[in-house]
């Protein structure tokens, strides 16, 4: 069965080939005896081309091509614009995120630095205040001691010089109030008491 089918197919193919060759020879025999068959074919093809692709058809094709090209260009431009917008948006978002992140980090560092400096300053101020308080206390104590010593010294000096003060005051108060004539009796009494010493000194001195 199969072989028969195969033979049948081969016969059919052979018949078709023979028919094709015969047709070709026939066509070749029908051509003009003085002209090249190829040239007639080219002329026919040219006539068909000129007939099919005339000026209007070409203008239409150009218009269609221009429109298509403009459409493609517009679509590409739109895609490019969308991509550009998207890229710009993503870039802005990225830049925003990165800058925010960086700024946050820097601000954190800066804040940390400020906090550290503040802490150092506070510690330094506290130490200084402590030192000042201690020094003030020591100085106050020293001043108190010196004041007490000075007061005691003044008091002792006043007590020791109190009699001098009173004497000076009395002398200054009554010095010019006592008449010299009233003092004559006192002076003569004192001279009388020391008369012998005065005489001896005068005699020896003389």
């Amino acid at each position, binding site marked *: 069965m199969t072989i028969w089918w195969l033979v049948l197919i081969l016969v059919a193919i052979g018949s078709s080939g023979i028919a094709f060759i015969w047709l070709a020879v026939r066509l070749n025999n029908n051509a003009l005896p003085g002209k090249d068959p190829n040239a007639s074919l080219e002329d026919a093809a040219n006539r068909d081309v000129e007939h099919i692709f005339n000026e209007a058809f070409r203008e239409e094709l150009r218009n269609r091509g221009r429109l298509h090209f403009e459409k493609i260009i517009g679509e590409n431009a739109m895609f490019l614009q969308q991509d550009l917008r998207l890229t710009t948006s993503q870039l802005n978002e990225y830049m925003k995120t990165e800058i925010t992140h960086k700024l946050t980090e820097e601000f954190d560092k800066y804040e940390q630095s400020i906090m550290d400096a503040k802490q150092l300053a506070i510690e330094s101020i506290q130490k200084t205040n402590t030192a000042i308080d201690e020094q003030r206390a020591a100085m106050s104590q020293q001043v108190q001691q010196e004041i007490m010593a000075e007061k005691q010294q003044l008091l002792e000096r006043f007590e020791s010089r109190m009699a001098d003060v009173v004497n000076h005051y*009395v002398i200054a108060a*009554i*010095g010019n109030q006592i008449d010299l004539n009233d003092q004559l009796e006192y002076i003569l009494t004192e*001279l009388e008491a020391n008369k012998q*010493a005065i005489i001896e*000194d005068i005699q020896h001195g003389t």
Partner: protein
Amino acid sequence: MEPKKRTLQLPVSLVGPTDLGRLSRELANIDEQLLQLKLRQPGGEVKLPKTTQLMDQLLSLNRLNLLQPADRTWMREAMEAIRQNAPVVQISFSVDPSTAFLEKLMAWLRREIHPYVLIGIGLQPNIAAGCVVRTTNKVFDFSLRQNFAKKQDELQKALLSAPAPTPAPAPVAAPVEPAP
């Protein structure tokens, strides 16, 4: 018989060496003027030299006559001797002493200490009262200041033992009469 030796008596108004020097210069001046009068021609106007009160007292006290050259010579020699040998005592007072006071003091000194004693007057206002006597080698402080200094311990004890003074009551404002 040997003549009695005369001594020059100084008036109490003659106090110090300054007065003695002034008297010496006055005596020399008088001597010079009398010598000039003696050299003048007779018949001319005679103008006797004037003497100071101190010189008058000295002359009166010693009964001397300046017209007698012997008296002037003796007086000059006596004053020179006194100037060279008289003891000088420096006495300082708190104020300038009056003449009457000095005369009383000089009378006592001439009577009790030495008949030719002279004094130099000084001023020390800080002694208040009394005087400070300086002889040749000693100082006798009879001032009130020295007296206070001697009794300083007693004054100090008295001041320390004295009770503290009570504070004086605050003055009360006089009542204001209501307005009519």
